Each structure stands twice: as structure tokens, then as C-alpha cells.
């Protein structure tokens, strides 16, 4: 019982640190492409950790399946939206930032 709660707490803290990393990337990166990259990767992974943490706490298997489905949907839609934003940015003429 305690092990289950402790694992959940650890996973949630890890997820929070991933979200924080994504947030820092959103605020500090120099370019829309870098920001998209940081945000999408960190947020998807953070959400995955949250889902795993909650699956450990779930009472029934279909609750766990619902959590996994949520993560999958967010993964797919997040990736597609990041792609669409980057595509639009390229079409508008923004060039990726280079470290000179």
C-alpha cells in the first residue's frame, strides 16, 4: 500500500519536473521551432508519467485503459499540432535559429 503510494508520488514528481522543463523551454528558447520541440516532448513524456502514476492507483482495468487512451490521444494530437505550427511558421518565412 505504502509502496504503491510512494511510487505514485515519485512518478508525479518526475512528471512535474518534466513539465517544468517544458515550461522553461517555452519561455527561454530563442525560436518557435525550439520551443515547439521542448514543449511537445517534455509535455508528452510528463503526461505519460502522470498516466502511469494514476494507472498504479486505478481500481479497475478499464480505468487504466481510459488513462492510456487519454495519453495516446494527447500524444497524437500534440505531435500533429506541433507539426502544423512549425509548418505554418516555415511558410511564413521564419528560419530556424542557428547558434553563431
Amino acid at each position: 500500500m505504502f509502496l504503491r503510494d510512494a511510487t505514485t508520488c515519485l512518478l508525479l514528481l518526475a512528471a512535474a519536473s518534466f513539465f517544468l522543463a517544458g515550461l522553461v523551454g517555452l519561455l527561454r528558447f530563442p525560436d518557435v521551432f525550439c520551443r515547439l520541440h521542448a514543449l511537445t516532448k517534455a509535455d508528452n513524456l510528463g503526461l505519460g508519467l502522470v498516466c502511469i502514476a494514476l494507472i498504479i492507483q486505478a481500481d479497475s482495468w478499464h480505468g487504466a485503459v481510459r488513462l492510456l487512451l487519454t495519453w495516446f490521444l494527447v500524444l497524437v494530437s500534440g505531435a500533429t499540432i506541433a507539426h502544423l505550427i512549425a509548418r505554418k511558421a516555415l511558410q511564413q518565412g521564419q528560419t530556424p535559429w542557428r547558434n553563431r
Partner: protein
Amino acid sequence: MTLLFGHLIDLLLAVSLTVLAWRLLATSDLFKATVLFIAFGLLMALAWVRLDAPDLALAEAVIGAGITGVLLLTALRHLDSGARVARMSGRSGRRSLRVLLPALGIMPALLVLLCLSSPHIRSTAGLTASVIERLDQIGTDHPVTAVLLDFRAYDTLLETAVLLLAVVAVWSLHPVRPIFSPEPISPAQRGLLRLLLPVLIMTSLYLLWRGSHAPGGAFQAGALLAAGLLLLLLSEQRLPGRWSGMFLRLLLAGGFMIFLLVAAGALVGTGTLLDYPGGGASWLLLSIEAALSLSIAALLATAVIGGRPSDRSTEFPPRRKDPAGEEG
């Protein structure tokens, strides 16, 4: 311990909501205000979860964050006049007044809270017990659905009429404006559409069915379906012209008409408006809800499109070929 964290989360959420609302109304960039408003809608959905109102959380997430977001973004395209120069609102002079007035709002807040923390407000039982004890006479097990479709069915009938009237108002203002359609759309977007659309339809049906015994119902299902329709619109799928005439109008008015027919039938049958025969069998409520959600989906999508269909030969909404002046 968990109680303390619960209080902390509530406090954090309430403060975030207030700060977010202030920021979104104070920023000078309209696009930023719109994006912040979508985030505000999501936080509101979280607040409804904390307040143990899952129906409201579902509705707020779909409507407040989703559909209103699309509506505002399309409005931004029309209203934000070309130059994205950040224009402050007028009255640049009275800064002290601008700072003072929100501070004056805290006073009523504290006053109201002070008198409301008196015990006699807390001790009223509310209507939960009365609803629950009459629940077995109705065809649903979920109290909110029972209130919406039976105890306060008149409100729901009129609410559907308000939705219809909103679309009539939008349609009476202007014919539908052409929407610039970039060809081709990204294959990733097409793939996402292929994945999401069946999921949305299934989830909408599930919510509709679920409303009879758990949080869900016609409005959430209809709004989710409307989100699917908007997704189709954003992926450059349009309603063929021959369907934008009588079929569309029947779809829009159908939910309200069916609800009204049932109400009138009950009036003829038992002498009281909306006095369902047999107290409201579950199949009757479910069929009303099904018609309602189809109509609501069509109504919300047409409200976002923003203009009446011109004639039966063009698509709805029509395409505009030239990208001149398009900011995307």
C-alpha cells in the same frame, strides 16, 4: 494531510483563475488574450472537477475551452485589423483609476464572504434530497439529467430555442464569408482527422448514453460532435451545396421541434406541458436527448461558421481562392 493538499489545490486554482482572468483582460495583444482565455476555460474545467460537478467539467472543457476558442480565433481573423500593432485601450491618462477600480472589487468580495460564512447559509439542505427521492419515478438515474430533462425541462426547451435564435441572429446579419483554403492540407492533419473523428463520434455517443446514469448527457455529447464538425471544417471539408438548404435547416431546428412536439403531446395528453406520460420513460428521454445532441452539434458548428448559406450551388462555407491579405 490530503485535506490540506486539497485546500492548497483549491486556493491555487482559485488564485490562478483570478490572475489569468486579469491578465487576459489587461493584455494589449488580442491573440494573447484569446489564448489565455482558452487556458482559462481549461482551468475552469478543473475547478468544476474540484467542485464535484463532472457534467459542468465536461461541458466547460468542450465548450468553454474548445468551441469558444475556435470561435474567438476565427473572430480574431476578421476583427484584428491587419496591423498587429499592439493598441492599448483609450484613456491612457487615468492610470491610478485603472489600478484603483479592481482593488475596489476586493471589498465586495470580502464583505460577501464575511456574511456568507455565517452558519445559517451552510445549513440549508438544498434540493439534492428532493431530487434524489423523486429519481425513481423518472427514466434516468443521474440527478442532473433528471433535473435538465424532467424537473426543469421547460428551461432546457427554451435553452434549445435560445441556441436556435443565436444561429438565426448570426444568419440574419450576413451571408457566409468565404474561408481561405490552402491546398493541400498537411497529411499529418489528414491522419489526425482520420484518427480523431471516429473517436469523437464514439465518445459523443457514449456520453449521450451515459447521461442516463452518470455524468454526461445531450449537451456534452452535442458539443463534442460539434467539435468534430469543426475539426472537419478546419481540414477543409465543406458541406456540399445541396445539403445546405432544407436539410441543414431541418437538422438545426429538429431537436427543438422534437422536444416541442413531445411537450405539446404531453400537453394534449395530460393537460400539463412537459408532463411526460408515465413519468418519463427512459427511451423517451433518450430519444429527446439524441435529437437534441444532433441539433446542438449542427447549431454550434453553424454558429462558428458565422453566416447564412448563400444558395444551393456553392459549398458551405465557400472557398476563397486568392490568398491576398491572408495572415493565416
